[in-house]
């Protein structure tokens, strides 16, 4: 019998901010090509989890294995090179540079100049920014900048994408397109999406993991999660529409 190594596996992952335990013994597993949604109220520890995965902060304790390789505590650029890409909650883009330059910088890391340009063209098409490629990113709308960041991350050809609130600040139409893009991406790679927008979650969700007070509260299909009384309690006041 062969046991599959999961794409991502964390064990007892903990982050302690001088008393505030933002992540508390998180055991998390993700398979190849999986699309996972991560939900939870404000301050549940979702972004902290992402920051540990990408080396922006060093975990207080616990392990992170990506394809069986331990990556906890490595610097961000080394983790990125193993195949992890992230769109952060607060947009991290090169505001003073053009859309094209943003995406090119990502594409060029692994590719020859010629290939990089081809990759950029393809990504621009995908995130619907071909027309805007010469625009300075800082001057775009919030939704468009989200796409620039998603495109930039995609151009790095990661095997696992972490998207922290990708639909924030988007119009309904943009949100729909983003869901479409996520489904397209998922045809070739694994994704974890953090979102508060339940309508958006419904467009893409299969398995949902619920974070609460730094811990994983439950992990199930969207239907079961939304039907769960504890989840409703946690979200009380946040108006989760259960239909």
């Amino acid at each position: 019998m062969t046991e599959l190594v999961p794409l991502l596996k964390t064990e007892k992952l903990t982050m302690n901010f001088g008393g505030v335990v933002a992540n508390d013994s998180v055991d998390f597993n993700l398979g190849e090509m999986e699309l996972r949604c991560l939900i939870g109220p404000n301050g549940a520890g979702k972004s902290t989890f992402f920051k540990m995965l990408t080396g922006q902060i060093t975990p207080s304790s616990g392990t992170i294995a990506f394809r069986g390789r331990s990556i906890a505590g490595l610097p961000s650029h080394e983790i990125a090179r193993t195949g992890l890409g992230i769109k952060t909650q607060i947009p991290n883009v090169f505001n003073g540079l053009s859309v094209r330059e943003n995406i090119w910088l990502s594409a060029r890391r692994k590719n020859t100049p010629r290939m990089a340009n081809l990759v950029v063209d393809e990504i621009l098409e995908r995130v619907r920014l071909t027309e805007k490629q010469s625009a300075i990113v800082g001057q775009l709308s919030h939704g468009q900048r989200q796409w620039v960041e998603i495109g930039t991350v995609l151009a790095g050809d990661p095997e696992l994408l972490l998207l922290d609130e990708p639909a924030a600040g988007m119009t309904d139409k943009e949100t729909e397109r983003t869901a479409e893009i996520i489904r397209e991406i998922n045809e070739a790679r694994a994704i974890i999406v953090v979102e508060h927008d339940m309508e958006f979650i419904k467009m893409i969700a299969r398995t949902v993991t619920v974070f609460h007070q730094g811990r994983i509260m439950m992990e199930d299909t969207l239907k079961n999660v939304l039907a769960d009384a504890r989840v409703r309690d946690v979200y009380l006041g946040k108006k989760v529409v259960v239909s």
Partner: protein
Amino acid sequence: MTDARHAGLQSILVLAAATGVALLPLHLDLFALMQVTLFAAMSVLALSVAFIWGFGGILSFGQTAFFGLGGYVYAIAAINFGDSTNAILLAVVLPALFATALGYFVFYGKISDVYLGVITLTVTLILFNVVNSTAGEAYRIGIARLGGFNGIPSVPTFNMPFHPEIPLSPETSWWVTGGTLIAVYLLLRLILVSRFGRVAVAVRENETRAALLGYDTRLVKLGVFVLGGAIAGLGGALYVNWGAFVGPTIFSLSLSAEIIIWITVGGLGSLFGPIVGCFVIQWLVALIGSQQTFNSNLVLGAILVGFVLLLPKGVAPTFLLCLARLRKRYRSTTEHGSAQSTPHAGQLT
């Protein structure tokens, strides 16, 4: 494409500058030629700061540390070798190595970039004090006496490569200095269109993002800093060649501050602007120095405040911006005009 147009403008600029450098000795007397030689040497220093600050986002208040080191290394080596060729090389290499050590300590030691300014400033002060206290026979390297606060007089100036018996004339010295300035400018331009240069700008824009894309931002910043140190060192050698003298005031804080003014006036994020700023400000300081009415520091301060308030982008970027606006307006009026003059077929019928 604007990139192609930009490249065109660049080539014209460089060609004009090269022609200017070549022909200038025909039009200037010796005193004026010496003066522009000095300005050009200082402009190399200006370029080093313009690059690391404007494109690498690294604000070093003590770039004179590398400039001064380059000057001293050149002087000591030229005296010992009796030939300037390898001395110039050393004046580039040693400051670069020193920048590597200092940069490694700062960038890899996770010291916040804010402190880089303070650290470089402190290093400059330390160098000043160390060199200043080397008066006396005991302080010599090879046959070169460091001379403490008196500095090192009669430093051999540049000679024909590997021919110490043929020193350069003031004209040739100008060609070498002006030519070096253009060469350094071109080198930096090439670096800025290369992957390394573009990544360096990306790190300036958003270091976190650059790291999350897989770039080792510490290494990139170190590279930028070392390049800046090497260029500043080269500037130091050119400066000492100009005056045949080097003293501890080469590490002065007022020079460090003046560089910041050149760049603020010329435009941060430009390479050409700071050269203009360096020439104009130095010319102004020389002019003020020749009369008694105004204090030059006062005037420099006023210029700095004036630019920060009125023209914060500096001369060169503001000029380019105006040019772009004019072009846009011109284009939109012509398009408008042609649209009016050729009405739709539908309107005619």
